[in-house]
């Protein structure tokens, strides 16, 4: 091939490179912002429990156990979609799931759980959303997997699907549970 012929291929090569990059870009979800919290200790908090407002919960209570924090609210439509998946998760693994009831009202939150069932060991009330900010929450629902040392190992933004549970969350939890015992 002469150098002239090569030059005619340059636009084609550029086009293919661009198409590949744009194609890959289509598969990315802009809502998934990598969290700086993964691999770090859980942000501490002490919040009143939803059903027992005079009792507080703090992550220290679960030190030494693998647990899941799920951020939810009764006003959040996607949480409704996710709810059955969460119930399925706790049905299959004895992992502790804590609910962070984010910017919600207590009566509506309780009503929601009574209607749809309660997969949470307990829920805590973050009415102002301050703990949400500390945990970097920006798209409810969000799900965090925390290991026995209190390190966040995984964060999922948006509703978890049964595929997410099957392929990522459950294997990770089982893995962490094995390494604990």
């Amino acid at each position, binding site marked *: 091939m002469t150098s002239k012929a090569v030059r005619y291929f340059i636009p084609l090569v550029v086009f293919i490179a661009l198409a590949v990059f744009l194609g890959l870009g289509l598969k990315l979800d802009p809502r998934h912002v990598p969290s700086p919290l993964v691999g770090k200790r859980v942000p501490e908090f002490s919040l009143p429990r939803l059903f027992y407002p005079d009792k507080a919960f703090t992550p220290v209570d679960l030190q030494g156990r693998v647990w899941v924090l799920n951020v939810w609210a009764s006003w959040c439509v996607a949480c409704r979609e996710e709810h059955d998946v969460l119930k399925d998760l706790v049905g299959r693994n004895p992992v502790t799931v804590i609910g962070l009831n984010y910017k919600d009202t207590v009566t509506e939150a309780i009503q929601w759980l009574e209607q749809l069932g309660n997969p949470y060991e307990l829920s805590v009330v973050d009415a102002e959303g301050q703990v949400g*900010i500390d945990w970097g929450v920006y798209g409810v629902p969000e799900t965090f997997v925390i290991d026995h040392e209190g390190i966040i190992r995984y964060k999922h933004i948006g509703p978890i699907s049964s595929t997410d549970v099957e392929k990522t969350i459950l294997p990770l939890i089982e893995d962490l549970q094995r390494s604990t015992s």
Partner: protein
Amino acid sequence: MKKLMVVTFAVLICCCPSVWAKVEVLQFDSVEQERRYNQLIEELRCLVCQNQNLADSNADLAKDLREKTYQMIKAGSSNEEIVDYMVDRYGDFVLYRPPVKLSTVILWTGPFVLLLIGLWVLVRLVRQRRNQPVATLSQEQHEQAQRLLHED
């Protein structure tokens, strides 16, 4: 007619989202604090509506983060402290001016690299054109041209 136009214009302006955003009335201790606040919420990005900054966004989270920024400024935090606070929680994504890192090198240098490539192509094209031989006419063609020009 004029009245109608004024009303239409007013309605249109109110439909513009930026008029609605940032409705909080805030009290600052100094002009300097207010300037810093406005600068920060311009530079921090809203995570919910990702192409807006905190100042423009109506999202609940943006409102909370504006409030947080305000409180921190009032409490005497420096700009770096506030930015660090946001980055610790939401990552570099909250910054419209991300720091230069290995993962952001392309972002920062990309435009300049493209500019250099453009300049190089331009220089080459201009040089090529300059080196092209100037078209010359043979004696015969020259006479034909003269004839054509003086035909009438």
